[in-house]
């Protein structure tokens, strides 16, 4: 079912799948894919809305992928199945109902995407916004709004949580000098925290403003519609954070 139920089997995902190749010194590999919906749906309350990207993303031995578009879903799932290591494949229930345009190349039977490579969904010059899964769509919509206000946003679709494509992210920030990370999960020890640190470690001198992060609220998911709306990132949150990141000018400029 959803990854919320996977917690009842998480011992096996981590201790039997993720660690076995290492513990057996390569004798036993675990070419398994765990796939299912992850994160918040609509009105399903606390026990059914958790995003597990950060938890699984911290485990060596696991690979963690999260598609956004139909192209991602097709290419990444095939890559996951072909991959010889355990892969956690985090889908999104709301995205199941969304249609995406696909090229003939995507529909080709041999189409597959590489694991560990992010995609620049939208090229930009003023600020880098990273996201995965449903939040990519929100980031793209925020970019359209910001375009009208003269801010040119580069949106990176992470696709791969682990391994994280630090190269693409850092290359982008070295170009734009500003970073906003977006995710649905809880803030503490989240995906954005790792991305921020990676950029601080590798591209500190290129940053013209502090890194901003938009995340889920730091609470279990409430049921009531008005509270749920406050607990999950909205497009206006992304817009606000981008404007903050862009409001500081670089020192010496």
């Amino acid at each position: 079912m959803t990854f919320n139920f996977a917690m009842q089997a998480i011992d096996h995902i981590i201790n039997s799948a993720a660690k076995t190749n290492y513990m057996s010194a390569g004798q036993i590999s675990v070419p398994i894919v765990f796939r299912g919906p992850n994160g918040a749906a609509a009105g399903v309350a606390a026990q059914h809305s958790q995003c597990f990207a950060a938890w699984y993303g911290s485990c060596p031995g696991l690979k963690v992928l999260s598609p956004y578009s139909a192209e991602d879903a097709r290419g990444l799932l095939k890559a996951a199945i072909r991959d010889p290591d355990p892969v956690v494949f985090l889908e999104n229930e709301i995205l199941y109902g969304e249609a995406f345009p696909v090229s003939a190349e995507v529909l080709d039977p041999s189409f597959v995407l590489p694991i560990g490579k992010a995609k620049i969904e939208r090229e930009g010059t003023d600020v880098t916004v990273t996201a995965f899964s449903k939040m990519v769509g929100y980031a793209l919509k925020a970019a359209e709004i910001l375009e009208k206000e003269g801010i040119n946003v580069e949106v990176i679709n992470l696709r791969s949580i682990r391994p994280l494509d630090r190269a693409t992210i850092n290359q982008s920030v070295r170009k734009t000098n500003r970073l906003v990370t977006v995710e649905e999960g809880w803030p503490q020890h989240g995906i954005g925290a790792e991305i921020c640190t990676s950029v601080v470690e590798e591209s500190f001198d290129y940053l013209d403003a502090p890194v901003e992060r938009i995340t889920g609220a730091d609470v279990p998911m409430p049921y009531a519609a008005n509270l749920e709306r406050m607990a999950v990132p909205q497009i206006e949150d992304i817009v606000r954070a981008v404007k903050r990141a862009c409001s500081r000018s670089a020192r010496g400029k």
Partner: protein
Amino acid sequence: MAPQISTLRRALFMPAIASRFMAPSALSRSFSRSADEDCSTFTVDIAVQFKGHNVEPPAQVVETSAKELMKFFKDMSRMRRMEIASDQLYKSKLIRGFCHLYDGQEAVCIGMEAALTKEDNIITGYRDHCTYLGRGGTLPEVFSELMGRRNGCTLGKGGSMHFYKKENGFYGGHGIVGAQVPLGVGLAFAQKYEKVKGVTFALYGDGAANQGQIFESLNMAALWDLPAVYVCENNHYGMGTAEWRSAKCPEYYKRGDYVPGLKVDGMDTLAVKQAVGFAKEHALSKGPIILEMDTYRYHGHSMSDPGSTYRTREEISGVRQERDPIERIRKLILLKEIASAADLKSIEKEVKNEVEDAVAKAKESAPPDPSDLYSNAYVKGYGTQAFGCDRKHSTVVLP
């Protein structure tokens, strides 16, 4: 495959042979008002035989009164109406997310309440609306919670699957299948430890019955003689999977092995009352016991499930005709001349109005205050900060 289907169908259609009643002690009393107060007891035969596993079943006769039967009728009618109203509210999108309805299974929670007190605990899964009402919840609290309003039983923050009423011994309301059962054993442990003369009833379905944690906690309950009763509400389908497809042994009352079990006609309120009273005594003196309630849900697993892709409409309507718990009580009341058909109709009308009023009130009530987003995350927040989606835009210090 075919033989197993017909076995299941036969089991479901075990007709409710009209109970062989003892000579009615009442005169032709046909006003429900006096019936509501008539506590004089009489006995009723339980039609379907109890089946025991490693235990001598209780007697096939149960004591009841006119007052009790009238209460059963009214309470179950109210629950039935409530679930039907919830169906409509879900379809009009006033209820969101998940909605798992209990109509058809009312005899289980009403029969339980007839044999228990607030000193006993009940814990169940997500099909909890009626269980909540049975534990003293009110219709406005239910509908407000389902619609996510602040005067709901959990302030609108829990939703359909997370109703609680701790002061009345109702511990929820849980979304992850089977997880409530070990929690129930823990509650029983606390009762024994604190020397409270109460028992914990942990409810789960046939779908959950194969969960490992159920057996792990059963072992502990048996080892330490805890006052825990496992109640398997066997409605024969775990979501869309029939019991014969999911369990090697679908005789759930036998699955406890070293723990005794009892199979009960879960559509017969009086049988449930008898079994639950028996189980409570057993749990207090000897240790855990499993009750398998043979019951049925008319709706699908949830409102996303039409409920007719894995079972036939004939099966559903057949159970409704032959075994409906409310109809059973109605027939008994009429047979014993406790009230007239018109009286019962007027009770149904009364209950319908109660439900409609509660729905109307709930529709008008306010959603939770935005500050409730952060309330109750902790008991003690130590002054830490909690953050909203944009941590620089919304942050709160937890008390």
